[in-house]
């Protein structure tokens, strides 16, 4: 009973400290999410804007000898079309060399229509050649080049059409790609989200744990706690529980920032995917369990390193190698391959969290693996509480100069 109440007293103090300090609350919880949201939104808008720029009729397509059979196609291209009254030599010589100017020059051989009608592919003669002069250093020129080339290739195909592949039938929407849409989305999210979540949680832990442990040591306030009859284990548990809550809040804030800005950003990118992410409440609960257990392990590790450090600054340096490890492990789902089958793999800290999350996000849930992950993480936290308690008891660690 006394144990519980002392842990509670510590947790209450840490909460009062965290939630009472507006600037701390702002920089660790509100700012990361807000920043990500604003930056991503801005990114989406910029991408959207540059697409709009491209679509404006600023690029000019100069055409010589435009054949009648292609007139209709060229009239519909999204660029300004000029078919007469220009100097082709000057175009090729100067104007095209200037990458700031958006233009291409298309040169059809004279009497193109009759040439291609008369042309025999089996005859061994060279085929009639259409020349498209462009500047690949200019985005607009390159885009116009690709567009016109595509038009011409389509036109060429349609003239000699012998059969179609996967032609869209007018009366029924037939699907030929049998891949489950959820599956491919799941695969992308399964690669991306575990890494993202690990990094966000890590930065959340970094924002709170070193100040609360190395900082208290540096300022001499932890010594004041150590002369009270409270057990060192109570202090360790109280610290880990409250710091984990703050880290979790910080991580969730960043995550919300991403989720909320993602649809706008993708829309800006011209990608039209269904953003209704198809996970069940059960999936979300499992993810939450994995996340909470992961935060506990992360906070434990950073707390132990912070207790070893003599001040906040050196705690930051000591945590760096751990950050690299967590980052690397976060990338493992991207290195290909499915989540490991062997359940013992889920005993490896961080790796187990990343793989469990990847399996949930990619609809390949292995309940036993997730169970082992959460249990192992809680066991590691218990070990860390024991280690931290020993450290709080050690005069070398707490008072060593």
């Amino acid at each position, binding site marked *: 009973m006394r144990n519980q109440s002392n842990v509670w007293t510590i947790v209450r*103090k840490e909460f009062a*400290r965290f939630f009472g300090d507006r600037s701390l609350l702002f920089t660790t919880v509100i700012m990361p999410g807000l920043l990500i949201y604003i930056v991503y939104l801005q990114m989406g808008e910029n991408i959207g804007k540059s697409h709009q720029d491209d679509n404006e009729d600023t690029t000019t397509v100069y055409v010589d000898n435009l054949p009648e059979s292609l007139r209709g196609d060229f009239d519909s291209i999204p660029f300004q079309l000029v078919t007469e009254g220009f100097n082709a030599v000057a175009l090729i010589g100067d104007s095209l060399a200037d990458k700031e100017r958006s233009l291409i020059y298309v040169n059809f051989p004279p009497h193109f229509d009759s040439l291609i009608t008369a042309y025999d592919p089996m005859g061994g003669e060279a085929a009639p050649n259409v020349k498209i002069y462009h500047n690949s250093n200019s985005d607009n020129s390159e885009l116009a080049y690709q567009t016109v080339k595509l038009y011409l290739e389509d036109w060429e195909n349609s003239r000699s059409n012998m059969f179609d592949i996967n032609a869209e039938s007018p009366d029924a929407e037939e699907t030929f790609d049998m891949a489950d849409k959820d599956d491919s989305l799941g695969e992308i999210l399964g690669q991306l989200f575990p890494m993202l979540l690990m990094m966000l949680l890590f930065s959340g832990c970094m924002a709170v744990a070193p100040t609360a442990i190395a900082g208290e040591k540096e300022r001499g306030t932890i010594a*004041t706690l150590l002369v009270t009859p409270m057990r060192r284990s109570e202090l360790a548990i109280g610290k880990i529980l409250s710091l984990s809550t703050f880290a979790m809040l910080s991580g969730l804030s960043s995550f919300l920032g991403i989720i909320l800005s993602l649809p706008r950003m993708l829309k800006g990118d011209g990608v039209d995917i269904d953003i209704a992410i198809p996970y069940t409440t059960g999936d979300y609960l499992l993810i939450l369990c994995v996340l909470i257990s992961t935060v506990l392990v992360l906070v434990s590790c950073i707390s132990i390193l912070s207790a070893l450090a003599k001040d906040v600054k050196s705690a930051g340096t000591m945590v760096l190698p751990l950050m690299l490890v967590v980052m690397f492990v976060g990338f493992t789902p991207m290195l290909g391959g499915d989540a490991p089958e062997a359940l013992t793999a889920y005993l490896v800290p961080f790796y187990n969290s990343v793989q469990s999350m990847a399996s949930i996000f990619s609809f390949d849930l292995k309940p036993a693996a997730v169970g082992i992950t959460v249990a192992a993480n809680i066991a590691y936290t218990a070990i860390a509480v024991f280690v931290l308690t020993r450290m709080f008891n050690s005069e070398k660690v707490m008072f060593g100069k």
Partner: protein
Amino acid sequence: MDEILRVEGISKTFTLSKKQQKIERTTLRKKVAVDNLSFTANRGEIFGLLGPNGAGKTTTLRILATLIKPDTGDAVLDGYSVVNEEEEVRSRIAFLTSELKLEDFFTPNYLFDFFARLHGVPEAEAAERKRTLFERFGIDKFAEVKVKNLSTGMKQKASIVISLAHNPDIIIFDEPTNGLDVLTARSVTDFLAEMRQQGKTIILSTHIFSLVEKLCDRVGIIIDGRMTHCDTLDAIRDGLSLEDRFFEIYKTVKGGEE
């Protein structure tokens, strides 16, 4: 006399870092901070540990406060060993030293409640004690001001009051008047005398002779980690002023070494 503290042959050796070796101007890796120190203190008295800087006073007090453990020996405080029964010892003492700080972010009011809770003081009792102590030290005027905005004197008063939240029988005070202005220093010495009147035992360390002469019932003189003399103030003074007597002793001890 009712003995409340018995220190039996405590020793403490520190390993010096390269940097500390330079500061101490020594090539030795080990420094004996406290060397087989023994003394007793009685209930209701002010016991002063007097000695120059680096004599081992603070180390001794830190051992009594259970922040560090002696390499050998033990001290028994109110029947509890500082080596084996730390939690019992901690619940009976107040330890005041410049090393122990209050968290800047909180107010004296919050911190008093916080430490009272950690000591398991019932809420009504804590509230009553807070009212009395805050009034006695004039803390009610700045009870809701964050510690970081308090002056040194206010901080010292807040530290004293908060360390008394659990009404400890023994007050261990390292250099009580160091760094304080005359007014705060005076209120601290008045407070110590008042605590003695209330029957509390005070163990303090200092290098200020006047403080010892004014306050202490019994004195232990520490030089180089050893207790050279330990007796009542009058017996130690032996008719001289404390300062003269101290240097006499110091010369004898140091002279013997040379």
